[in-house]
């Protein structure tokens, strides 16, 4: 195995205990950029790494490179709020995300790396009878597809999440919630490291600090990529650069139905165990808050998009206030906690809120993009399905609905029912 990182097991950890820190080796090292590859993947985020892993393991492709502009896990795989769930309304989406959730459950074993999947449940709170009907409709759609969903009334909600103050008089009282018990959290950085380690062990070259600046083509097919480290020949090229896919579209001269927006997240100082689940909360006319507690004890919070195109990765202040207000409204006793860190990531926002997995301009150029705010939880399913697509040339049923042509044919997957705008405030 390259990188000298050994197979982890109870015995190996025991050995590590005896041997001390010398036991721990880099997860991947010593990768050199070659002149030609079977598949070049652009972007070492969750989707790029997972695609490389499945191409190497399931399809036996030997010469694979991942080219990354910055560092492994610098983008959204290290910037999200770690929530995984499959509580989607539309069949195309809930079958896909359910496949992903099933894979999360066994991912630590598949990668031989602990990604700390914690099925602590995801609660979508309903603040009115109308929202309860909406939650029931979504829950029923999920149950028809064989996905677990439970509609909780106020008493059941209080039993499931005792920390939540459901009794206090509010303008919009908490009526109930939709619970998905198998939803929960996954340690996000571990996902990037685990996939990178497993892909590296299978012979994938992970090249950091190597920006792709152009695509060369001959006779209607792409022949390779121009990079800051020189030209690399490739039989197939995969773009998994969510957050910057619109720039890839500009590079290839293909306008895409994507706007690039910022999404913020923040974490408080560590506190004792307080919150046993994930709360998702949309306050009418105000904003959105989702909140969970990390294993270190920090309360991880996120909210709505900033609402206009940006690449700055700096969040706007009033959106941060929305998130914190929502969190304090749900859990008033955390009001004294300090925010330790705050950050933003760039999101590919498509015009129907669903991802794009298709060819782009050339027959041998593939794009995996437009994940909106659902990219992290999709990683295992996306990697497996997209690797099949790239290796065989035909898209598996699971991702057929995510083709780019749906915008021209009108087969949109508008989960939110909001029309061709990523965000409406």
């Amino acid at each position, binding site marked *: 195995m390259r990188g000298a990182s050994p197979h982890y097991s109870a015995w190996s950890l025991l050995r590590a205990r005896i041997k001390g820190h010398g036991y721990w080796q880099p997860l991947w090292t010593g990768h050199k950029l070659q002149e030609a590859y079977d598949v070049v993947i652009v972007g070492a985020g969750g989707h790029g790494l997972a695609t490389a892993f499945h191409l190497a393991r399931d399809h036996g492709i030997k010469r694979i490179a991942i080219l990354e502009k910055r560092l492994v896990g610098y983008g959204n795989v290290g910037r999200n709020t770690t929530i995984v769930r499959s509580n989607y309304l539309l069949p195309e989406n809930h079958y896909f995300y359910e496949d992903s959730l099933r894979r999360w459950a066994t991912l630590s074993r598949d990668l031989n790396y602990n990604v700390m999947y914690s099925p602590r449940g995801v609660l979508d709170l309903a603040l009115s009878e109308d929202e309860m009907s909406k939650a029931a409709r979504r829950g029923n759609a999920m149950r028809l597809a064989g996905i677990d969903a439970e509609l909780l009334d106020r008493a059941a909600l209080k039993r499931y999440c005792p920390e939540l103050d459901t009794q206090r008089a509010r303008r919009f009282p908490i009526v109930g919630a939709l619970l998905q018990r198998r939803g929960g959290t996954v340690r996000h950085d571990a996902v990037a490291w685990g996939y990178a380690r497993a892909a590296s062990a299978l012979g994938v070259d992970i090249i950091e600090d190597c920006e792709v600046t152009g695509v060369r083509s001959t006779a209607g097919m792409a022949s390779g990529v121009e990079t800051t480290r020189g030209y690399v020949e490739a039989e197939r090229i995969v773009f998994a650069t969510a957050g910057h896919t619109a*720039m890839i579209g500009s590079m290839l001269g293909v*306008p*895409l139905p994507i706007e690039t927006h910022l999404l913020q997240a923040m974490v408080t100082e560590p506190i004792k165990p307080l919150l046993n689940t994930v709360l998702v909360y949309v306050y009418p006319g105000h904003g959105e808050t989702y909140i969970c507690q990390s294993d270190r004890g920090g309360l991880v919070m996120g909210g709505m998009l900033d609402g206009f195109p940006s*690449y700055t990765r*700096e969040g*706007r202040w009033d959106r941060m206030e929305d998130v914190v207000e929502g969190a304090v409204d749900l859990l008033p006793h955390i009001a004294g906690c300090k925010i330790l860190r705050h950050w933003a990531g760039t999101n590919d926002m498509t*015009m129907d809120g669903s991802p794009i997995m298709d060819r782009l301009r050339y027959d041998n150029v593939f794009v995996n993009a437009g994940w909106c705010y659902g990219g992290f939880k999709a990683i295992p399913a996306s990697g497996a399905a997209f690797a099949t697509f790239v290796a065989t040339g035909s898209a598996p049923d699971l991702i057929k609905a995510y083709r780019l042509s749906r915008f021209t044919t009108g087969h949109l997957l508008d989960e939110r029912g909001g029309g061709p705008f990523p965000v409406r405030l």
Partner: protein
Amino acid sequence: MTLATLQTRLTCPFCGPRHLSEFVFHKTVAPPNASPFAEVYERIDNPNLSIEHWQHVRGCRSWLRVHRNPSSGSVLEIHLLGAAI
């Protein structure tokens, strides 16, 4: 000329500098010869210049054409929509 960084304020031609939360972004402006499909779904992505329609919703409600640099966050120009540029 940089009017302000977008993270805090926008300058409305009527109302002067106002907090960003008073404004709502609508969409990037499609090229003049765009097909109806492109007008609705496609977006121009230039990391150095984004031309957009905004509305001063929680203010004078006028529609604005804003030129911004989405990589730096700076606002380059603001015009009243329909006014001669």
